[in-house]
């Protein structure tokens, strides 16, 4: 199955958003990358190899699971797109694998990445082990301590994990540090950004590597005896990669409602990571998008129980989709997310990641609107990494 299409925006802009707000040193690198990506996606040797590895290494296609008991409780038909069953436990490997193959094709021997929850770091460390590439992962010191299991996984996979002690010591600062490394080692190094953020071509490229989520969903709905277009799709949004991946093939299908769920942290009037709900346009990490910032244009620290959503920016395409109204964005608190973990665990025997749990927590709010209708939820990752946090919240 050929699952890739030529959707690469020429200029890297989504309306006013996106672009390349980066130091001059990185301009040749992103131009080279955009060209290499375009050529690779048009080269069947590359896409065949990627397809083969997605099938035989990642475990794709991931199932589309009918969530019978939760459906009954909510009064609708709920299907879970099971990205939690990907190798390494989250959708992140779709992109890490694609970019690592591309880096190898470009002759880059060294890979760097940033990570928040550690899922992207683990996925990157994994594909680097697979291809024998050097791997350095930047991770905020705060995240190193709350995602210890993933730190150990990365080390076991042969990656060097560099704790970042600047700023808020989370994903934002890990990204700054990764960009500084890239600026310094741009000749030898490819930077595998973990979400649909950063300068062009990253937002478009990362989306294309995750488009497989939505394309499989279309086909699998039909296999379930349903139309290929559901009534609604729900996904969590930090940077927004799993959401864009599952939304992408449905963006032009206007009968499909799209819902993105951000982290409301301890509350939208308190500390949160609800960039699209409460942010304003600004430039961070190479792109113009929505941003949590103060009136001086200084970037605010985000807050969420979920390290993967704890980011004050968001992918520029999401900013565009918010402004155009194509996607509805919501926010869910830490407490609601933990309740979402419990809900899915008890009704379906699936322990989701705290990121994913934000999407689950939205379902009760949508139940009335979609009564008797079909909803697909992107089950973006599994919850093993979050067990310490979940347990301390639920069981004291």
């Amino acid at each position, binding site marked *: 199955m050929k699952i890739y299409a030529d959707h690469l925006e020429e200029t890297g802009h989504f309306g006013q958003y996106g*672009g*390349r*707000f*980066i*130091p*001059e*040193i990185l*301009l*040749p*690198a992103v131009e080279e990358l955009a060209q290499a990506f375009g050529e690779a996606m048009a080269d069947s040797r590359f896409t065949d190899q990627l397809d083969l590895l997605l099938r035989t290494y990642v475990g794709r296609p991931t199932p589309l699971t009918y969530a019978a008991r939760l459906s009954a409780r909510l009064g609708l038909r709920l299907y879970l797109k099971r990205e939690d069953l990907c190798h390494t436990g989250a959708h992140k490997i779709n992109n890490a694998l694609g970019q690592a193959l591309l880096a190898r094709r470009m002759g880059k021997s060294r890979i760097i990445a940033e990570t928040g929850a550690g899922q992207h770091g683990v996925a990157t460390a994994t594909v680097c082990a697979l291809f024998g590439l050097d791997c350095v992962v930047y991770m905020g010191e705060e995240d190193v301590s709350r995602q210890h299991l993933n730190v150990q996984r990365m080390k076991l996979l042969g990656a060097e994990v560099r704790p970042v002690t*600047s*700023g808020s010591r989370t994903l*934002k*600062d890990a990204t*700054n540090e990764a*960009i*500084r490394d890239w*600026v*310094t*080692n*741009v*000749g030898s190094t490819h930077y595998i950004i973990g979400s649909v953020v950063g300068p062009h071509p990253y937002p478009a490229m990362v989306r294309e590597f995750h488009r497989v989520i939505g394309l499989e969903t279309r086909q699998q709905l039909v296999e379930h005896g349903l139309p290929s277009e559901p009534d609604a799709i729900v996904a969590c949004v930090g940077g927004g990669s799993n959401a864009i991946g599952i939304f992408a093939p449905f963006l032009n299908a206007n009968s499909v409602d799209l819902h993105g769920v951000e982290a409301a942290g301890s509350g939208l009037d308190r500390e949160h990571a609800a960039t699209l709900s409460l942010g304003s346009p*600004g*430039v*961070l*990490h*190479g792109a113009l998008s929505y*941003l949590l*910032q103060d*009136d*001086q*244009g*200084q*970037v605010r620290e985000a807050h969420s129980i979920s390290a993967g959503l704890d980011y004050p920016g968001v992918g520029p395409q999401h900013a565009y989709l918010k402004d155009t109204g194509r996607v509805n964005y919501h926010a869910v608190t830490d407490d609601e997310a933990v309740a979402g973990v419990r809900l899915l665990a008890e009704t379906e025997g699936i322990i989701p990641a705290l990121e994913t749990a934000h999407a689950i927590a939205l379902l009760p709010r949508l139940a009335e609107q979609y009564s008797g209708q079909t909803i697909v939820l992107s089950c973006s990752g599994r919850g093993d990494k979050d067990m310490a946090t979940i347990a301390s919240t639920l069981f004291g």
Partner: protein
Amino acid sequence: MSSLSEAIALARSEGRKATGLFVTAGFPDADSTDAVLDALVAGGADFIELGMPFSDPLAEGPPIQRSSERALRHGATMSATLDTALRFRSRHATPLVLMGYYNPVLQYGLGNFCTDARSSGVDGLIIPDLPPEEAKPLADAAAATGLDMIFLIAPNTSDERVATIDELSSGFVYAVSVTGVTGGQLSNFESTEAYLSRVSAVVKKNAVLVGFGIRSHEDAVRLTKHTDGFIVGSALVSLVEELWDAPMSVSERSSAIAKMVADLRVGH
């Protein structure tokens, strides 16, 4: 000719390399930036880059990152930075350039920012995360108010692109010495020299000044063989940090800063 171009031309006519110094506004604290700037002028700076603090300065090494964090902790704002520029202009004729990241400028409003900067005596802008492709709105506003717009080039910038950047720049072209962040190690000298020689042949309209990683007079001498001047940032910021963390009088600190600038200067 802008004051900045004039200052660089004057240095050249005196057989010197133009000396630019970078310091962050609001650093080491809101009340002390003025004293640092005065000392830079006393030491013989040909122009000054005043840093606009930002929470996420992604092209900066640790010293300038720390200076930015410290200024923000002390409540630095864009208005305070412009006030610093205005007070500087009331005391000195030395050209002053604002250097900083795009988002605070964008939030201030591009037109208002350029108008207020110009009326505060600012002569030019350096925005390291704003390559020419994204710079038109700000460059237009800068041109309308008479501010120089200084773009950067790097060792991996093609000749064709260097020529374009020269065309779009005014004041000077900022040649980043190495692929890296500010305050990094200067790399292989032969390749740096070859790069600067190549660039100086391509850049026709503007002077070329080199910066990033220059710590000493010797560094400055080596890197200005093919360029019209140089900029020192991290080394100065580190010195200021040291001086203000030590129990010293203002005049002792000022003399140390002035001495550093005087020692850096190349040519007579």
